[in-house]
């Protein structure tokens, strides 16, 4: 009798070293009567690569604005490596690097001046900035362009500089909001490979927002957002299995065609 009464053991959790890189819990926000996000929860593991999928207007930009503290969420909480974004904004923001959807480099300044400005905003000393700028520019293959004005760079190169800038202060979580929009196929591939390598080699956690399905690979975690609600989260494989579809685009279509559930 004793042996049958033992409750089923929960499956062992994967080894967790500290809190998740990003934990979004019951997050909600609205503008007036328009609900932009409705009780969204998901997490990004340290060193994990997560794709945030959603059509335009799904709430991706609102989510990014909340995580980067452009404004504060109405309900729910955001933790970054365990730091509550509301209570410890400084500690939380120190961990984040961001590449915004809109290009945000000063085109009249040189690449290095742009990087120095960003480093200063994060409280880096000029010498530290200089050293880090050299490292990051070498990594993106633009070591010789540091003194050129951003205006002279191509769209793909500018994006790479923005990635270098986001990594300058050694964040542990990188957020990218539609980073490949408007780039040619070559630049897109280059940037995606670059970020995946960072994830693998440096243990950087990445949240990559996109509406381009082909950017996700089978091992990636995906979070599907539709009309402000979380429709699915898990690996591409589990999301496909849950929706009984064969590919991510099919799964996405199945998740986003239905009307908002009551």
């Amino acid at each position, binding site marked *: 009798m004793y042996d049958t009464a033992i409750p089923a053991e929960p499956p062992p959790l994967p080894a967790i070293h500290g809190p998740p890189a990003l934990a979004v819990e019951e997050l909600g926000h609205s503008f007036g009567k328009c609900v932009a996000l409705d009780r969204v929860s998901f997490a990004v593991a340290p060193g994990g690569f997560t794709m945030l999928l959603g059509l335009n207007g799904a709430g991706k930009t609102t989510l990014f604005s909340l995580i980067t503290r452009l404004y504060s969420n109405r309900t729910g909480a955001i933790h970054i490596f365990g730091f509550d974004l509301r209570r410890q904004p400084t500690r939380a923001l120190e961990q984040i690097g961001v590449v*915004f959807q809109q290009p945000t480099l000063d085109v009249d300044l040189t690449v290095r001046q742009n990087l120095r400005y960003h480093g200063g905003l*994060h409280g880096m000393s000029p010498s530290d900035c200089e050293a880090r700028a050299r490292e990051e520019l070498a990594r993106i293959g633009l070591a010789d362009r540091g003194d050129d004005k951003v205006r002279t760079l191509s769209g793909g190169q500018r994006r790479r500089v923005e990635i270098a800038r986001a990594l300058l202060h050694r964040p542990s979580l990188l957020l990218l909001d539609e980073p490949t929009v408007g780039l040619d196929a070559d630049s897109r591939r280059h940037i995606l490979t670059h970020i995946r390598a960072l994830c693998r080699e440096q243990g950087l956690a990445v949240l990559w927002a996109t509406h381009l399905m082909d950017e996700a690979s089978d091992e990636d975690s995906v979070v599907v957002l539709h009309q402000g609600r979380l429709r699915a989260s898990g690996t591409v494989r589990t999301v496909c299995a849950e929706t009984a579809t064969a590919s991510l685009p099919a799964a996405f279509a199945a998740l986003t065609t239905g009307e908002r559930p009551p």
Partner: protein
Amino acid sequence: MSAATYWYCLRSIIVREGLRFLHQRERFFAALVRPLVWLAIFAVGFRAVLGVSIIPPYETYILYDEYVVPGLVAMIQLFNGMQNSLSMVYDREMGSMRTLLVSPLPRWYLLVAKLLAGVAVSIAQVYVFLGIAWLWGVEPPPLGYLAALPALLLSGLMLGALGLLLSSFVRQLENFAGVMNFVIFPMFFASSALYPLWRIREGSPALYQIAAWNPFTQAVELIRFSLYLRVDVGALLWVVGCLALFLGAAVLAYDPGRGFWARRGGPAEQA
């Protein structure tokens, strides 16, 4: 967060503002030509029309040119404050303000740093203008140039904070012409910049009241007195009070929890 962190942040914001200013030569010349046109044309024409009696801080009869210089100095700062406000709205629309606000330093500090950077640029312009005015024959006491510095800092911050506050109300860049019409021109003309207050009272007691309450008048008088090595305590208190009020309101307007963004979203969401 150490003091060095704050310093590096402030430094980089000022350096960027300076670099941007140097890259926009037309802006530099426009900023300089505007007061010079007033000094070289308007003041000359007005010299004969408007006699200025002996009023503090002046100790003798002065030419109109001399009277109008502090007003034009304040005008440089007013335009600068509004220019910064305009670039805040522009940066917001273009998204580049986000790179500023994602800094881990407190947001009020980022806003103050941005203000200080704008004021640093405006003070540089003011001294170039004062140099040209000196060649023109407007020669305040040499020490006055030094004594004016704290006054310029305060008035620049006050007008910059007003611009910052206005930028939080302006939703789109196109609406900015309204700010020109409803803020810059009334503030400038209904003040002691171009004519002494007692002259305005002769013309219209109501306008006199408005001009006396106008924070821009107080900025002009603060600069005027300091340039002649005097302190206008009333103007000083008025400018400091307005600075606290405008800056406090601007910090609230840009606050992540209570500000306008939380209510209506960033530029991308509005699109």
